[in-house]
């Protein structure tokens, strides 16, 4: 695959040119301290990473981006299909698929891994046509991380800092102020073909020399290796750790809804008031921390307590889904759930506590 070097201005101009042809999304400041992936408009600010960025001047941060970029492929709420009476007394169903050409840029490696995992989830079993249609028409441009996003970041510990798979183009800032542009797929290749960037012969060395500027350790580290943490989460059922971390929990579902690998949804049917007999089915993001998530007909709730729901959430990320799919932890260490939680409940702390408890001398007796 081809690689290029581009100066900052050339790369910015190239991205802005793409925005004239497709919907281009770029992480933009929102509110006081947050980011949102929004359409890149003529006047939208666009600032690329630089090699000498101090931690505080990192231009966009995964955990401060409330809604992860993968939600552009699986929107928080979406119409699945419409229905209307047909001539034979039945119904006609009209699927709502979205083949808009999109380009999402500014994706951090943690969110890139999350999209890769969601690709697998949505292709498995009954393929999710809504997700897969959007995905087929979406180009991903990822930005390497040379600084942790903030104090919540633990992507290195979760094994996603060096994730590149799924990106069509991968950007790494260089010492000379240029950007290394690595095309990783034919689609990325085609996108950069007429960009006018200078070819680069040794992308691997260039990327690695930039990555040598990363602080050591990079972000928070578990007290045990990831495999041991995951094993502890997998093996722990009854534990005071689950209760400890829900004392302040509101069961508000924020941790689920901001998570780049949460994909559960709730469905709803609507009837049109203007057109009798017609209506639609839509879905919206749901979350297993919400009190009614596991409630079934008759009122029984399989996970009635916050601790039971927390256990389920953590096990989904670090035990259940990693068992079902390859590619390791479904927690990508972006730090969103901990950052966005109003009472600082953090999956990093929960996992770390579970690992510590399983290492404790009497753990075998539990």
């Amino acid at each position, binding site marked *: 695959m081809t690689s290029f070097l581009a100066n900052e201005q050339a790369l910015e101009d190239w991205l802005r040119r793409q925005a004239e042809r497709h919907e281009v999304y770029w992480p933009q400041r929102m509110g006081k301290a947050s980011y949102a992936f929004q359409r890149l408009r003529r006047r939208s600010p666009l600032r690329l990473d630089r090699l000498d960025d101090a931690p505080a001047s990192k231009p966009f941060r995964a955990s401060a981006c409330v*809604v992860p970029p993968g939600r552009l492929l699986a929107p928080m709420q979406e119409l699945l299909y419409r229905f209307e009476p047909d001539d034979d007394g039945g119904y006609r169903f009209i699927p709502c698929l979205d083949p808009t050409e999109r380009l999402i840029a500014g994706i951090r490696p943690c969110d890139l891994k999350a999209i890769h995992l969601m690709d697998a989830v949505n292709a498995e079993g009954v393929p999710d046509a809504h997700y897969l249609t959007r995905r087929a028409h979406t180009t991903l441009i990822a930005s390497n991380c040379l600084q942790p996003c903030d104090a919540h970041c633990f992507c290195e510990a979760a094994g996603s800092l060096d994730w590149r798979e799924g990106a069509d183009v991968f950007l790494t800032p260089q010492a000379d102020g240029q950007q290394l542009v690595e095309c990783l797929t034919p689609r990325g290749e085609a996108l950069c073909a007429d960009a006018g960037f200078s070819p680069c012969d040794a992308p691997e060395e260039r990327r690695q020399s930039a990555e040598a500027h990363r602080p050591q350790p990079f972000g928070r580290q578990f007290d045990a290796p990831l495999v041991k943490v995951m094993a502890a989460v997998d093996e722990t059922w009854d534990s005071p750790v689950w209760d400890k971390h829900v004392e302040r929990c509101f069961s508000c579902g924020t941790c689920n809804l901001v998570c780049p690998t949460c994909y559960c949804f709730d469905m709803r049917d609507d009837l049109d008031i203007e057109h009798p007999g017609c209506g639609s089915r839509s879905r919206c*993001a749901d979350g297993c921390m*919400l009190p009614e998530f596991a409630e079934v007909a008759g009122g029984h709730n399989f996970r009635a307590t916050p601790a039971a729901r927390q256990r389920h959430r953590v096990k989904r990320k670090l035990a259940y889904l990693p068992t079902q799919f390859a590619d390791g932890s479904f927690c990508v260490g972006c730090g969103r759930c901990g950052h966005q939680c*109003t009472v600082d409940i953090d999956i990093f702390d929960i996992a770390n506590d579970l690992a510590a408890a399983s290492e404790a001398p009497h753990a075998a007796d539990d």
Partner: protein
Amino acid sequence: MKPKIAFFDMASCEGCQLAILDCEDIFLHILDLVEIVEFREALSETAPRFDIAFVEGSIHREMDAERLRSIRARCDWLVSLGACAYNGNVQARSNALAPGENMLRVYGPEAYHRTQTDPHYWPLWAHSRVRPLSQVVAVDYHLRGCPVDREEFLQLLKRRIAGALPRVAAQAVCVECKRAGNECVFEHGDTCLGPVTWAGCNAVCIGGGYRCDGCRGLLPGANLAAHRELLREHGLSEAEIDNRYRLFCAEEVAEATA
């Protein structure tokens, strides 16, 4: 035959009925589905019986309670329309005070003294407590909020006519904030009742740049102890916290902490 529906108001600003009238762009379609037989704010007719009664407002005097019982007796299905009817809304704040004390605070000593001397004056004010509808009669469905959300009203109407009910999830406003991609109110330095408040409003106030003051009422099982602590950490005094809860949820907080 189209179901007959009727609207009534107790102690309220009648803003919820206005929110219903705000459906004017599709009102004719609504009238294809139902027949409105009583609605003081929109028509002069009255009716002896109706299928669905929408009652706005809280119950203050015994005569209001009697009227509500009569409405209940004349309908199959009764819906509380808005925060006043659902949980007593802002007026339930007065439940924390003796009626005389309340009178003195709001209308001053002259009015207060008149209650002692004028037999026709006092009964106007002498209610023992502000009650939501459900403390007087059985309520079949609640439309929460100050005011109600017109979409939620339409959903209910469409579902009820189709023989079903809309699912209103018992979940916090935070859910709708995240779905909308809003920055958390706590993130920009203000405090918010969203984590303990019934969703259903699509986080409209936060999306508009404000915060949640809890007009849809306290969520069942809300973690108030943790929420109090969170508000304290963000610099609110105990009195300020009480005030925030009492604004829209006075009656519920009184019950939750009784």
